[in-house]
């Protein structure tokens, strides 16, 4: 599927002329319900994400944000309802999705060049018998040039071209997140799932990374879902917000969802949404009385 893509990402056309309905959805969920170890995580989620949208997934710890991602990656199955990702049921190993997990195996002791990690993620052409048989997984590579070019392009697109020859263990948190982003981007995916890329970054670096991601959304037209604790660094770039709390899911534009009424209905207790003069949001109330937690 990836092999059919042109070697350069197409200039993104806004989905104005695309026909309405389920065919043009990047993600479509209908009355979705999910359980984890037989315990209800959330239910009754119905939403529609269109191609090229930049969406924040917000909610308290343990609300089921990562579970949503794992379902889209085909690593977890809904107990009921319909989920369609890029026009098909979710399946494991979907090369049209780029994924940055929250947890990473590598650490300060990992001595390996960054571009090696990005190149390893390059899917390459499909060959051999059957659809599941890919050279990425088995055997030596025969298209090192294409792989190198793709890795270089991905690193350039995330503003990390100069980091390619550095060791993974020597990078700062923000630099590392850029490398992970390039790793997710190297197969020219149609969708990015970014799990907490902004955690452990200070406000300035968060904003820089959000700018990079927003640039990718606009230039490549890649549908992007981003799990975050703080919505403020990205609030001006968002098309939609998925707010998960209290076993329920609310979806809409930031102005629709982040209101006192909607969040109070979601949590079932009174929640106050405050805005300052620069458009920053603070959510007071919710699952605990700490103001800084919700937003």
């Amino acid at each position: 599927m990836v092999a059919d893509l042109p070697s350069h990402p197409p200039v993104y056309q806004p989905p104005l002329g695309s026909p309405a309905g389920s065919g043009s959805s990047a993600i479509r969920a209908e009355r979705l319900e999910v359980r984890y170890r037989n315990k209800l995580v959330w239910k009754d989620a119905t939403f529609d994400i269109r191609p090229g949208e930049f969406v924040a997934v917000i909610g308290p710890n343990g609300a089921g944000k990562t579970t949503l991602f794992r379902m889209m990656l085909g690593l977890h199955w809904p107990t009921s309802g319909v989920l369609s990702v890029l026009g098909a049921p979710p399946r494991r190993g979907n090369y049209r999705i780029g994924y940055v997990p929250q947890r990473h195996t590598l650490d300060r002791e990992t001595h390996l060049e960054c571009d090696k990690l990005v190149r390893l993620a390059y899917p390459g052409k499909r060959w051999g018998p059957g659809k599941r048989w890919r050279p990425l997984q088995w055997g030596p590579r025969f298209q090192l040039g294409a792989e190198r070019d793709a890795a270089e392009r991905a690193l350039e697109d995330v503003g990390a071209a100069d980091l390619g020859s550095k060791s993974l263990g020597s990078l700062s948190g923000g630099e590392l997140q850029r490398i992970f982003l390039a790793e997710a981007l190297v197969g020219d995916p149609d969708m990015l799932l970014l799990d907490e890329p902004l955690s452990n970054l200070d406000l300035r670096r968060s904003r820089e990374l959000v700018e990079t991601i927003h640039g990718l959304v606009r230039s490549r037209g890649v549908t992007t879902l981003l799990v975050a604790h703080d919505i403020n660094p990205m609030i001006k770039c968002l098309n939609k917000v998925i707010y998960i709390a209290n076993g329920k899911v609310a979806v809409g534009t930031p102005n629709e969802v982040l209101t006192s009424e909607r969040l109070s209905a979601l949590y079932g207790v009174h929640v106050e949404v405050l805005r300052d003069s620069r458009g920053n949001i603070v959510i007071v109330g919710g699952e605990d009385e700490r103001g800084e937690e919700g937003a």
Partner: protein
Amino acid sequence: MSGGGWSGIPWSWNIVTDVRLLWSFQFMRNAIEAGTIIGILAGIIGYFVVLRRSAFASHALGHTGFSGAAAAVLVGAQPVYGLLIFTMATASGMAVLGNRASSRDVTIGTVLAFALGLGLLFLSLYNGYAQEAYSILFGEVLGISTAQVAFTFWSSLGVLAVLALIYRPLLFASLDEDVAEAKGLPLLGLNLAFLILLAVAISFAVQIIGVLLIFGLMVTPAAIAVRLTSRSLSAVILSVLLAVTAVWAGLFAALWTNYPASFFIVGIIFVEYVCVRGVGALRETALLQAVDAPERDGVRSLRNATLTASVSQVLLVGGAAALVVTLLAFPGAVWSPAELVARALWPLLALVAAGVLGAASSLLYFSGFRKMATSSREFTAPAFLTLVGLLGIGLTAGGLGLFLSGEALASTAYGLAPVAELFGVPILFLGVVLSLVGLVGQAVGNWRVGLRYEEGALRAGAILMVLPLLGYGIACLGYQRALSREPAPAPLSVSG
């Protein structure tokens, strides 16, 4: 080990003759061939062991191999077959029981202890208990037969072929497990395949290095390699080279000295590891590169200062030792400064150089601490103490100059000599005390900065600072003893 009655061969200093002589022994040819194959295998597999943090797993597989070898000995088979069966079974168990990196070590440790106990039981059932246990635990490279070499060669070729096939996915799964899982890579299968390859490699390596020393050959060469290069292919090649050269050098050393080859192999690798860590400590840490300008400059000054101070301290210790040796060579002699200079020129020059470098390092320390103090008040005190130390070094030099000039003048201008000596000694004493105060300040500041920025070099420097203090203490004690030597202290009689 070393094949029973073998007592080393004469070393002729002619490399060609020596190697030819070695090559004429069949058992030595076997040992070198097996050692080379195993070195290559260990170097390559070891890279993944380091990358996957499976060092403990490889250690444990070696231990279960012990029970396998013991069982084989008990039933009268070649130990290597027992090793292979037991380590592969354990590897499969490990892969199935805990496939997530975080949950492995308790599982592994439990299996390890049981396996070792089992091996003990098997060996106690067997008659030649001690000899067999010794060769399994510490290796028996010179006892490898030609058939075993062939078996090792073909099996290793198989291992490397499988590894070439799963190289990319294994590397990817080792680096980013969650993404690899999402991309559809079979994590469980990869882990199982890797552990089985590891088991085979360990079974062969046990033959030459033994169960207990397996870590040195399987893990350390690769750990050294990844510290020297961050390119994966270069690291693998380097790791292989380190392992193979260590095995060769160990074998040759064992033959000529009649000490065990395992010791030399592990010893060579250990020394290489220490050197690499030492060089690594001199590099700047990533943490430092991320901090802001004045602090970073400050820490850089401190690094240079520490380097200078280390050289100074080496010169100080070396020069003082050389001086003492020179003085002791002429017991009872009365030394005039001219004679001293004539007889101990180099030690004195070393001491002067140590003093100059010490002063330079103190200047660097002062500038470093002052820069640090702009951002954090806790470095104000080290900066101040360093300044005191600088003053002390100046006073020491001045006092020494006065004292020596007094000595020199003693033969010519009688009037001035007592004055120079009178002031020289107290100024010298004050200078030394203040210098030591400065050293304490530098040591404390160094330690704090080293902790804050994870700078191994600075922490090591802080410890080095203690050396002159110790030296001073020892010098004081020695002076005391020299003073009280004339009436030699009678040994206290111990009342029975």
